[in-house]
């Protein structure tokens, strides 16, 4: 029985609104859906992430935990109230410090900080940490957010836009930052045109089951909703990121292979959906025995075409590892186990689909718009030209949004209903159904000679790839290529297997398996340094790959920067060791330790094409347009690619207008993954900028040194005394609506791997090393990381502000992986049982950016995004070992595991 909703009066940012809302509704939901104040974000609906923080009579509260009845008569403040059209002082501080990356946590951070600053105008760092401790950020590692809050009083102006030719290297604020701090950015859940229907999925509560769907017509009629199942899918009900391995249904047909798999969608208007009890959906489940780890064989093969549940093997071999190990002076071996790790993007997946004539438009969070288009077209039985992907701002990516999630489901709903259809995952749904980092079981052995020169390594790893293929093949191929670390390893054999289970599908997660392998190699390097009597950093330096050396794949390296990274860490390393030694000289429960670890990472696809195409055009009206097709999920492609294009063309960054990776407007720049965008799309942007410059110069007969100047519709080219003016409005409009334009494609030159993994898998590598300083409480097993010094070779630093942000965020994810993150299917589908670092868990981070140019990268550029995560966990583990003698063999290093390892190391 329905009775009229109560009318509630809400005063938000000084304006009083009257809404009809149930008194028990979440304030965050009313603000967003009824008042259309979409600046307040919802990340968990459980008070665990703080993204929805608003002020109620000046106090910070979670909008998701506040019944709207409690807000009646109160003064409510949201991010929209912090400023009018231009950012206010705190928002400007956020921009200045690069405190917003993806921006999804920014409104919550800003509101929590506002409450603090009113009570405590000059807070200490500790006070800021506490005030922001209830808001999670997955991108930044918090340092820049805290810096911004501490710096608000300074209210300095934004740095001037760089001059022509000086964009690359400039500490430029992100070009797309303002909407993120104003709360006006449009994420997947934030575009809701009139008439929008909501979509929810019916999902499996079982890890493995068969099912039969009952009388949906009867149920949907009663529920005033529409139901669509696999039978309604017009195309091929199978997708996958790698076509040869595609195995995932958009809606399961009769069998589910993992918990959370969708079997049907329900479509209804919002009011109806909010009142629906989806638990009453007519389905009968027949659960089957499930295996969610690799301990037990699944009861039946996950996929008929993979009878032994083996998805793929990766293999690299050079020299004779067994023989070399047999004669090595020192050898060390290790077995190590890592957990499922969740991306924990603060934004749960969300998007909306609608029909524009015959074109299906899908605006959703993604890192791979063209791949989304192609797979949606396949599932929905449409030509690729009839599907348009309009990437929404993504509230975090890290690999999670490289797979389809809700795109085919909202596409199906829009096709069937003809109405705009929106879907917003719940936190539990997001965690249960999106991909994870592969849990790994690794065995490795490394040997060196008496001088400490590494002679050989063997590596064997089983990676739990979960129910579906996703990016499992990419991970399994990448692992043996990288497991040596950036070190000369003349005799080498590495094997990796990606094995199916009924666990969550493992896919892409920052580092694609390399963060797991680096742990094993780096722990063993500490063992060998000790055995050889060498300083741990010097042992690594001795073995580091140098220009002209060959990798385990036989590739001759150019621009190898690992030695430079280690050299930059020598002084911090010595200081840290001295400090820990002095501290530990006194007896005590707390022991300090220092660890070092390295990384290398090949940028782009492994021995496979991955081109990017960039278009730059000038319109007759004088607009300079960059079609920037690299999805910016917070890492900063919109800014970095523009900086490269600007210097290549010779016009200032400030004059560029960006068109994003909308598949109807912008050429394909591939996926935002594998640290490829600044390198690959950056190179395409450089080539496009140079090509447009050549076109302009050739029309004016000016030399290479000529300066360009765009003034309204006049393009002025000058060199010395020469001056030529092009009237853009007088030129004929040519391709794509531009009077002058250029389009360039770049595909990194690689050579595929042979049966022994020999080849040239990547055109560019990046390098880094971290020193971790920490203390371990030897009575409780708790670890507190004080400081990370991170040296990374970027080849050429395009934007130091953004680069530091990548490092700090990568350290945070590495720290989480090392110390607290462990996903259990069905048990940690929330952000209070699945822990990621908060403001109070982060160390001081000192970033050292090194420029050893790469001959292939644009202007010398190498990738950075994945590299930054890889050394953190092994550096922490090595520091725990240094502090206590404890050798951790399973992640995360939770207090009970550390304490057990300490006791084992003492033989007690």
């Amino acid at each position, binding site marked *: 029985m329905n009775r009229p909703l109560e009318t509630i009066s809400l005063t938000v940012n000084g304006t009083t609104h009257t809404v009809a809302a*149930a008194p*028990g509704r*979440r304030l965050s939901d009313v603000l967003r859906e009824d008042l259309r104040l979409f600046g307040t974000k919802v990340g968990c609906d459980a*008070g665990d992430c703080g993204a929805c923080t608003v002020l109620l009579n000046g106090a910070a509260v979670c909008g998701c*935990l506040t019944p709207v009845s*409690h807000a009646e008569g109160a003064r409510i403040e949201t991010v929209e109230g912090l400023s009018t059209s231009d950012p206010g002082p705190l928002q400007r501080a956020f921009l200045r410090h690069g405190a917003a990356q993806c921006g999804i946590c920014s409104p919550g951070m800003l509101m929590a900080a506002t*409450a603090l600053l009113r009570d405590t105008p000059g807070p200490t760092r500790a006070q800021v*940490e506490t005030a922001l401790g209830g808001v999670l950020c997955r991108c930044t590692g918090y340092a820049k957010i805290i810096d911004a809050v501490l710096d608000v009083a300074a209210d300095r102006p934004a740095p001037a836009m760089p001059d022509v030719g000086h964009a690359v290297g400039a500490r430029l604020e992100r070009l797309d930052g303002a909407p993120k701090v104003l709360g006006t950015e449009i994420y997947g859940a934030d575009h809701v045109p009139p008439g929008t229907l909501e979509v929810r999925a019916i999902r499996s509560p079982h890890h493995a089951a068969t099912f039969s769907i009952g009388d949906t017509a009867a149920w949907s009629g009663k529920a005033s909703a529409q139901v669509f199942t696999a039978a309604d899918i017009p195309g091929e009900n199978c997708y996958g990121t790698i076509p040869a391995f595609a195995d995932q249904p958009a809606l399961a047909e009769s069998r589910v292979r993992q918990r959370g798999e969708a079997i049907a969608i329900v479509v209804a208007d919002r009011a109806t959906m909010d009142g629906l009890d989806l638990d009453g959906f007519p389905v009968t489940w027949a659960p089957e025995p499930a295996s969610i780890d690799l301990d037990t064989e699944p009861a039946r093969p996950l996929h008929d075409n993979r009878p032994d549940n083996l998805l793929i093997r990766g293999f690299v071999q050079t020299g004779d590892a067994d023989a070399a190990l047999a004669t090595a002076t020192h050898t060390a071996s290790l077995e190590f186990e890592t957990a499922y790790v969740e991306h924990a993007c603060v934004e749960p997946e969300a998007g909306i689909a609608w029909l524009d004539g015959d074109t299906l438009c899908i605006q959703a969070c993604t890192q791979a718009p063209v791949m989304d288009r192609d797979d949606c077209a396949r599932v929905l039985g449409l030509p690729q030209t009839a599907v348009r992907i309009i990437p929404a701002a993504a509230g975090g990516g890290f690999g999670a949004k490289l797979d389809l999630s809700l795109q085919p489901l909202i596409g199906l709903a829009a096709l069937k209903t003809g109405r705009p259809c929106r879907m917003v995952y719940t936190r539990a749904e997001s965690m249960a159904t999106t991909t994870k980092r592969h849990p790994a079981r690794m065995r490795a052995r490394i040997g060196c000679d008496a001088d400490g020169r590494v002679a050989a390594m063997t590596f064997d790893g089983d990676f739990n790839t979960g129910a579906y293929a996703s990016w499992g093949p990419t991970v399994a191929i990448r692992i043996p290529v990288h497991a040596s670390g950036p070190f000369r390893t003349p005799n080498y054999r590495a094997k990796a297997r990606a094995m199916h289970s009924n666990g969550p599908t493992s896919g892409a997660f920052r580092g694609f398996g390399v963060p797991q392998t680096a742990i094993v190699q780096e722990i063993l390097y500490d063992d060998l340094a000790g055995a050889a009597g060498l300083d741990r950093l010097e042992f690594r330096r001795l073995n580091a790959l140098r220009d002209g050396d060959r990798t385990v794949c036989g590739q001759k390296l150019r621009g190898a920067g690992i030695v430079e990274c280690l050299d930059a860490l020598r002084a911090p390393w010595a200081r840290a060791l001295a400090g820990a030694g002095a501290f530990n000289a006194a007896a005590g429960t707390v022991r300090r330790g220092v660890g070092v670890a390295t990384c290398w990472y090949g940028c782009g696809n492994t021995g496979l094409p991955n081109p990017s195409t960039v278009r730059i055009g000038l319109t007759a009206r004088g607009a300079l347009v960059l079609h920037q097709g690299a999805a910016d999920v917070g890492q900063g492609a919109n800014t970095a690619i523009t900086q490269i294009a600007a210097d290549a063309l010779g016009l200032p960054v400030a004059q560029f207008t960006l068109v994003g990776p909308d598949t109807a407007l912008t050429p394909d720049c591939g996926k935002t993954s594998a640290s490829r965008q600044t390198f690959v799309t950056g190179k395409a942007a450089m080539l496009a900028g140079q090509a447009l410059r050549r076109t302009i110069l050739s029309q004016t007969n000016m030399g290479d040194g000529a300066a360009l100047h765009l003034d309204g519709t006049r393009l002025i080219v000058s060199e010395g005394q020469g001056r030529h003016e092009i009237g853009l409005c007088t030129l004929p409009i040519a391709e794509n609506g531009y009077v002058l334009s250029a389009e360039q494609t770049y595909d990194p030159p690689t050579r595929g791997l042979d049966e022994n993994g020999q080849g040239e898998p990547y055109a560019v590598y990046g390098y880094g090393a971290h020193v971790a300083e920490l203390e371990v409480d030897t009575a409780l097993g708790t670890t507190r990381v004080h400081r990370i010094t991170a040296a990374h070779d970027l080849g050429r630093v395009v934007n130091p502000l953004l680069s530091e942000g990548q490092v700090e965020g990568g350290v945070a994810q590495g720290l989480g992986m090392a110390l607290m993150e462990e996903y259990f299917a069905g048990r940690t589908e929330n952000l*209070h049982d699945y822990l990621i670092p908060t403001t109070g868990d982060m160390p001081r981070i000192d970033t050292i950016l090194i420029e050893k140019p790469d001959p292939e990268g644009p202007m010398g550029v190498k990738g950075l995004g994945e590299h930054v995560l890889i050394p953190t966990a092994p550096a922490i583990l090595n520091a725990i070992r240094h502090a206590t003698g404890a050798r951790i063999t399973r992640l995360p290093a939770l207090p*009970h595991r550390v304490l057990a390892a300490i006791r084992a190391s003492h033989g007690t």
Partner: protein
Amino acid sequence: MATYHRPTDLTEALDLLGTSPLTVAAGCTDLYPTTQAKSLQGDILDITAIASLRGITLDGAGWRIGAATTWADIGRADLPPGFAGLQQAAREVGSVQIQNVGTIVGNLCTASPAGDGAPCLLTLDASVELRSTAATRVLALHEFLTGARQTAARPDELVTATLIPASATAGTGQFEKLGARRYLVISIAMAALRLQTGAGRITGAAIAIGACSPTATRLPELETALTGLPLPDAPRTVTRDLIARRLDPIDDIRADRDYRIDAATELVRRGLANLTVAKEAAA
């Protein structure tokens, strides 16, 4: 459609509760996380508009913390040193956002084994006031907490306050919380202490452990062992055996059983040491 009552008067609230089963809501920080729906589920009795239920008061019998009193209210209040542990807990629980609306009585009613309120209140000999239209009864906290997520409250009863006898606030309190991260963390183990001292010796000890048994629990054997000892001797008197006999921890994703006992032992030692340091600093 579910009903939502938000009376301003306690009598009305008790009448409603006596008429039909209702879910009592205050800060809602434990209620919303149990659902991913947009609204509180079920029929709700929201007690936050009843002014008489919010606040901390002292009368002849002792202290009274009303059912709608938030953690932030407790953290900010001017209270004797015996409450210091409770106030530390109030500033540690969840996050600022949680502390601003979450209530300590709600924390007791949720009765999570890892609830931060119970160990501190146990050291303060707290009791719980339950009211219905028929009667008012007072239960000692350990009688109220009957198991993991179970209490002795009847469906028609509203917990209106937690009561602390004036005699139980002597001495100084201390709270030690252990979690796998700094903020927003469910405790692996926690210890609450309240010590009375005189002439450098412990004259009275109240010690409770949380997250190591279905309900938080006092450690009477340890309290007895400590009483009469010189303060500096206290930490080394704390043995694993004295702690373990009252605990029954579980293995879960946060820690294993043995670790929890070890951690509880260490937390008690640290609590004693921290109180000793504070005492010396004050002297």
